[in-house]
């Protein structure tokens, strides 16, 4: 009994520093400017200024950034799934020379972060003429070692007999991947897709390197520029902008959190 009370007490106490910033972000985003700086904080906005969101949205071409973010994120995650499924199919269901070597070549990519390669990739893209293009934002992320690994794990779990039975019915090769392996791997697929969507929607580093033009900038870059301009003045607008940049991921997370949790249970983290 006392142990239960202690557990809840510690968890609630820990929740304060965790949850308060969210609360303060929302409250600040709804304050009219004169309520932002007060000697004693206004815990709730006396006159919620809903138009802060519209003002912030129009302060920069956020609509453009939003479209760019959607295009880039969808393209990256789509490509990662297609390429990852093909590679995982080869690694999990075929016997061929060099299979182990190929597997490790792909896995080794996990320890080469983009923060190491960015200068070289910047030069490559400059020579290709891909700076400030969707292609430049997407191409370096078109394949995912992590996704390949997860899908390979899922494909390995499909029993051999099923493949033999499918072959008797004339379903082998890519149709087998499409009609049998992928549908059976749906939880893995969804879990990976969610993590990938969050990662690339939120990505700040690579778009910062390859974009210098509003026509291709993504939301995180737009918000970053907004920070540069608004700091020390309009915190209410900055918080409103931060909220609408984060909102799609927060919504995705709250509605699909079950799958987020699964993605880690499936991550092959048992060593």
């Amino acid at each position, binding site marked *: 009994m006392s142990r239960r009370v202690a557990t809840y007490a510690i968890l609630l106490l820990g929740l304060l520093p965790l949850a308060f*910033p969210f609360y303060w972000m929302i409250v600040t985003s709804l304050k009219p400017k004169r309520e932002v700086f007060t000697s004693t904080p206004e815990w709730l906005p006396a006159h919620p200024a809903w138009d802060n969101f519209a003002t912030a949205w129009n302060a920069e071409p956020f609509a453009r950034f939003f479209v760019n973010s959607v295009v880039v994120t969808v393209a990256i995650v789509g490509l990662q799934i297609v390429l990852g499924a093909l590679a995982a199919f080869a690694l999990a269901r075929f016997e061929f020379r060099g299979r182990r070597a190929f597997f490790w070549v792909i896995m080794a990519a996990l320890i080469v972060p983009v923060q190491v390669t960015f200068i070289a990739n910047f030069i490559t893209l400059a020579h290709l003429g891909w700076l400030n293009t969707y292609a430049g934002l997407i191409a370096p992320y078109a394949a995912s070692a992590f996704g390949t690994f997860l899908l390979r794990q899922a494909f390995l779990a499909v029993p051999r007999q099923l493949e033999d039975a499918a072959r008797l019915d004339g379903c082998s090769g890519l149709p087998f991947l499409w009609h049998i392996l992928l549908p059976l791997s749906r939880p893995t697929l969804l879990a990976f897709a969610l993590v990938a969507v969050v990662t690339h929607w939120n990505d700040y580093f690579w778009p910062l390197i390859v974009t210098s033009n509003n026509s291709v900038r993504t939301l995180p870059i737009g918000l970053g520029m907004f920070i540069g301009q608004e700091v020390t003045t309009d915190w209410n607008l900055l918080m409103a902008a931060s*909220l609408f940049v984060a909102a799609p991921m927060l919504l995705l997370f709250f509605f699909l959190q079950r799958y987020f949790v699964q993605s*880690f249970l499936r991550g092959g983290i048992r060593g």
Partner: protein
Amino acid sequence: MTALGRGRPYLYLAPTLVVLGAFTYLPIARLVEMSLRAPGLGTSLGAWTGLGTYATLFHNPLFWRALGQTCTYVFISVPLTMALALGLALLLNQPLRGLGVFRTLYYTPVVMPTVAVAALALWLFNSNGGIVNYFLARLGVSPVPWLVSTTWVLPTLILVSIWKNLGYYMLIYLAALQALPLPLFDAARLDGAGPIARFFSITLPLLRPTTFFLSVVALIASFQVFDFVNLMTQGGPSNASNVLVYFAYQQGFSYLQLGMAAAVSLVMFALVLTLLGFVSWALNR
């Protein structure tokens, strides 16, 4: 099997190998080349210069400062995050009602964009009107110059990164805890082992693969710290929060010293590899 049939797996692997080759592996070779050649016009390269770039780099005191500050950041934030995450996971791994809600809430900052977290942290820790200093004042503590003082800036960034990342490590530890074999704990309990003894002699050793995995992830991720620095401090005040990736970024894009930036990236990569080697040696002994 036909020739096409035998070639099939290679065909399926090809797109992934091309992308990883072009944007992950070739760049490493390219970085080596860039670091050994003089800068040319624009993005082209000049004559081979040998190790001159590295000599210049190792004589740059700012490089050593950025390296030291990166290490401080890594070696404080990684153990702290992992210890807190394990503690939280242990609390959440009890058969109590409503813990799922806590798990969700603790995980929420992980899905936030770093940019939004940076904006929020700038506001919370602001010297002018920031709520954190208001709370401190209520407790009778004088205001702390969080992001504008050379002593406080790194601890503040560490704090923000822990806030952002804790949930990820917590969730993975929780997943591992839930997969532990329960009979082992019952047996230990029957033998009279208390909760603390059970934790150190059963839980912790069994979690070793998870701890290894998480240390690798955390080391790689925290060595790359950049977003918060670029968004909140630009390496300042007076370079007190300059870190390796930010230093490389400055060399490359502010001073157009691409060879120097390449050299920094390679030094950082070598460091991460060495650390990973050490961690795997220490945890798999």
